[in-house]
């Protein structure tokens, strides 16, 4: 009985390991492309220009953030029955099983966009200028805020719960006193390097976004799930060793 349970856990562990190694390969490929593109951008840049830390914005605010959920993945039914049972057993133990998810852009924190300007604006000194600009754009802009640009990756459907990266689009949204008109400012890190950034740098950004949104959170989730399975395997092995030792002792005592 114990042996079957351990075998089930190990089977699950090997599946996780397979996922982990394939995600690692994907991350390697993405990072290799990213490094090549940054090198290309540096090579083609003007003399003395290097796209690096000299251009970082000291007031940068994260536009991609993590959300950590603890609900189990809704794919158990899609997996094999034994796998599903193993996951349920692990969940019953109270272990934290974080799983994979991709949050579509529509689920971005809307509530955070509506907080007060003073509390949310990451660039206070730019606020006054922006407010002035918003007054002028109010005449031109429609009442509804312009939707944020959606990439193909953003449009991918969610895959459940877990550690995810979500885009915080409305960092720069200023809520007007009437509460009807808003204006947005780009929070794109590419702007640190100028308005006309080279194409390789944009490609590097695309690859980096893919790694951050789709690969790294899943690797982190797999890491934590593998750790949970490891602990349970060790516990099951200890239980089996104890029961075997007990079984050995009993015949000796009876004789």
């Amino acid at each position: 009985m114990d042996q079957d349970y351990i075998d089930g856990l190990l089977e699950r562990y090997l599946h996780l390991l397979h996922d982990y190694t394939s995600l690692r390969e994907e991350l390697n490929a993405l990072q290799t492309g990213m490094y090549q593109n940054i090198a290309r951008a540096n090579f083609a840049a003007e003399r003395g220009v290097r796209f690096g830390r000299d251009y970082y914005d000291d007031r940068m605010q994260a536009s991609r953030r993590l959300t950590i959920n603890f609900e189990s993945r809704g794919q158990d039914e899609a997996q094999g029955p034994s796998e599903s049972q193993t996951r349920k057993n692990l969940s019953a133990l109270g272990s934290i099983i974080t799983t994979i998810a991709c949050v579509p852009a529509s689920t971005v924190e809307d509530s955070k966009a509506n907080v007060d300007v003073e509390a949310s604006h990451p660039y206070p000194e730019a606020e006054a200028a922006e407010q002035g600009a918003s007054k002028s754009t109010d005449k031109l802009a429609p009442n509804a805020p312009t939707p944020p640009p959606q990439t193909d990756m953003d449009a991918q459907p969610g895959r459940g719960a877990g550690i995810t990266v979500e885009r915080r689009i409305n960092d720069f949204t200023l809520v007007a006193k009437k509460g009807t008109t808003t204006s947005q400012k780009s929070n794109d890190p590419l702007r640190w390097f100028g308005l006309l950034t080279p194409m390789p740098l944009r490609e590097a950004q695309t690859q980096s976004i893919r790694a951050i949104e789709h690969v790294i959170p899943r690797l982190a989730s797999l890491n934590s799930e593998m750790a949970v399975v490891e602990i349970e395997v060790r516990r099951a092995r200890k239980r089996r060793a104890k029961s075997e030792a007990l079984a050995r002792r009993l015949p000796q005592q009876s004789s």
Partner: protein
Amino acid sequence: MAASQGDYKDRQFLAVIGDEDSVTGLLLAGIGHVTSPPDSQKNFLVVDSKTETSAIEAAFESFTTQRKDIGIVLINQHVGLPPLLYFTASILPRNTWLQIADKIRYRIDTYTAAFPTILEIPSKEHPYDPEKDSVLRRVRRLFGE
């Protein structure tokens, strides 16, 4: 458990310790964050040949222990060595060299907390080495190797 889950909800940033190109690439994705003054804290550290090992360790300590808003720490598998250590490493046997290069990694291998999660990523100069991956080391330990 509920309280601790509430704590995890605050962990919304990724942190990076790595070479300049790794950090630049990851910051391009929009993960860079500087907290508001007066104690402006960055969630990244650019490591080069001049960076002291103590600075790397301090950043690692800050990201993993002190700050409660970091959910994942990304660290280059091979972090840069100070020049003196490079010279020392070059005249020592390879095994010793690995021990020096892994000076920060002993912290990673002994790190057991669930959050923040530590992930090792390849650097520009060195490809991903499965032998050094702490997850795969754990796998080997589980299967008794």
